[in-house]
């Protein structure tokens, strides 16, 4: 479903070149729940940004459903992110002026889905994450755990092919983290492909496959 071939990512600061990813090859099948682990600075988030098309690798190729993404224009990538991917960020990344329902429905509006249908889908997604009663609340009126659940509902409302999550529990307390991970587990059981970056082993165990990265290379790839 998704393949990364020999991905290299380097950053240049003046004359100093830092190689963050040093040739990663990776593949994930439909319906897999993959946890990418590693210590801080290992390159796991950078890798996630490459395969989720939020960034461009310095070299290498990412192939999604047989399509080579290096040949895609920025507009095609944007459409791909909109329709095929869902994102859950560490700091929730909700728009403060939109309600929970509006935050969730926004990508659906962008897909030209009629407003009423989009709102209905958003309502269903919020119900799935247990926030069916908080539709009209602004992010500032929700707890951190609730905001992350809104973020998940936004990511899944349009039924994406792949759900990417970058440290989704990093800013949450233990209880909220457990709730969020149980939602991921349920989504996975429903057939959702999930690729999640985390540094917490406790939550990595929710995945069925564990990929460990260190110093820009995959050092372990096994069933959890």
């Amino acid at each position, binding site marked *: 479903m998704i393949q990364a071939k020999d991905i290299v990512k380097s950053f240049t600061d003046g004359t100093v070149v830092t190689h963050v990813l040093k040739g990663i090859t990776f593949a994930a099948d439909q319906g897999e729940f993959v946890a990418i682990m590693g210590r801080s600075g290992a390159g796991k988030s950078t890798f996630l*940004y490459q395969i989720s098309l*939020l*960034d461009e690798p310095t070299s290498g190729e990412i192939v999604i459903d047989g399509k080579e993404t290096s040949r895609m224009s920025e*507009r095609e990538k*944007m*459409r*791909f*992110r*909109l*329709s095929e*991917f869902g*994102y859950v*960020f560490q700091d929730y*990344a909700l*728009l*403060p*002026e*939109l309600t929970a329902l*509006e935050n969730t429905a*926004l*990508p659906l*509006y*962008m897909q*030209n889905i009629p407003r009423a249908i989009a709102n209905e889908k958003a309502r269903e997604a919020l119900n799935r994450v247990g926030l069916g009663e908080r539709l009209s609340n*602004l992010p500032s009126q929700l707890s951190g755990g609730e905001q992350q659940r809104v973020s998940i509902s*936004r990511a899944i409302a349009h039924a994406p092919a792949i759900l990417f999550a970058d440290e989704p529990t990093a800013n949450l307390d233990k209880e909220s983290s457990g709730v969020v991970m149980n939602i991921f587990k349920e989504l996975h059981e429903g057939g959702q492909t999930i690729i999640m970056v985390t540094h917490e082993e406790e939550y990595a165990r929710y995945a069925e496959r564990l990929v460990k990265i260190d110093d820009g290379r995959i050092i372990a790839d096994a069933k959890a």
Partner: protein
Amino acid sequence: MVSPVDIRVGFFLAVRQLRRASFWTTGLIVFVMLLTFLNLVVVTGMLVGIVQGISDQYRTQDTGDVIVSALDEKDFIENSPQVIAFIKSLPGVAGVTARYVANGTLEANYLSRDVNAKPNKTGVVISGIDAVAENSFSDLSKYVHEGAYLSPGDYDEVLLGPQLIDRYSFGQFPGLTPLRNVYPGTKVRLVINGNTREVIVKGILSVPANSPLAMRAFMPSEEVRMLMGRTDYAVNEIAILLTRGTDPSAFRDVLKRSGIGANAKIRTFDDAMPNGIADVKNTFALIGDAISSVGLVVAAITIFIVIFINAVTRRKFIGILKGIGISGAAIESAYVFQSLFYAAIGAGVGLLFLYGFLVPYVGAHPIVLPISNAIIVAPWNGTLIRIVLLVAATIVAGYLPSRMIVRKNTLNSILGRN
């Protein structure tokens, strides 16, 4: 390329941002746009209004809507009584006044003057008027500042314009040396066509320097006629006021077709208006436009800064929007819609203030300036053009900064990296 979806989503985002924006910040921006709009319309409108005030004075105090005057080769209008009677019989006539007009001199303090001293004397245009008809035509009595207006039956009495009196005179004009020590009740010596008469100043007018009344003297028509040595009732000019809705050009053509044109010059107010006034009006309009264009640039820069700061502080959210697949065009549209909102509300409030209060109020209470009673000239078509300019400047000023931020790398925006 902007698609309808981009516009719909952009509009949705703009409305939400505006709805949850700080009331005071939004109010301040709208206030700046309001001032810009007023600057665009009112500055030019007032400058043009100064000249319009002058030309309005000519219309209401001198020519009326149509003026019939002697041919260039004649001193009077032939068959004046018949012409006046015919004009009065026509539909659309609101008022008519006939005047004898003569050049002459006025001299004051001639009894007490030292033989070798310079005479206290000035050249003057004397209008012989029917006090009642003239007053109902031009409201002349309203302008009497000292003394009193002429009454029917007055004899040897004169009204003087302020430019003839040195304490009211606004600068010197060729051939005009304002009279000193002249007050209501002062005797002055009037000479017309070599005929001399001692008359008493009954009143002194108060009008701006550019008023057609400013340099004139007014006397009962019978006396002026006799001083001119005119034995019939042939007047020099007939000024006509028309009812609202009557077209002066059409009325002029009716008079011409009636045969009056063979014995007199028939002109509308626009025909008779001195060329200089039209030139000054156009010049003032250009100056007003130049000043307004500076205001337009300032408004554009204000919107640019507001949107730029807004976009920079929301760079992370712009990155997130792009990250989840919202197009750059939709995000840019959101900022353009916000700019348009500021411009539309500012212009809307400005329109209400301008046409609901400012124009009618200043129209009813003109701003008294030394050269004219200024009004605000703000025709709808000119105002609409200025609104279009303001909106166009606002769209550009809203689009550019949002484009600058949207173009930045998506991930760098999300992570706050430079």
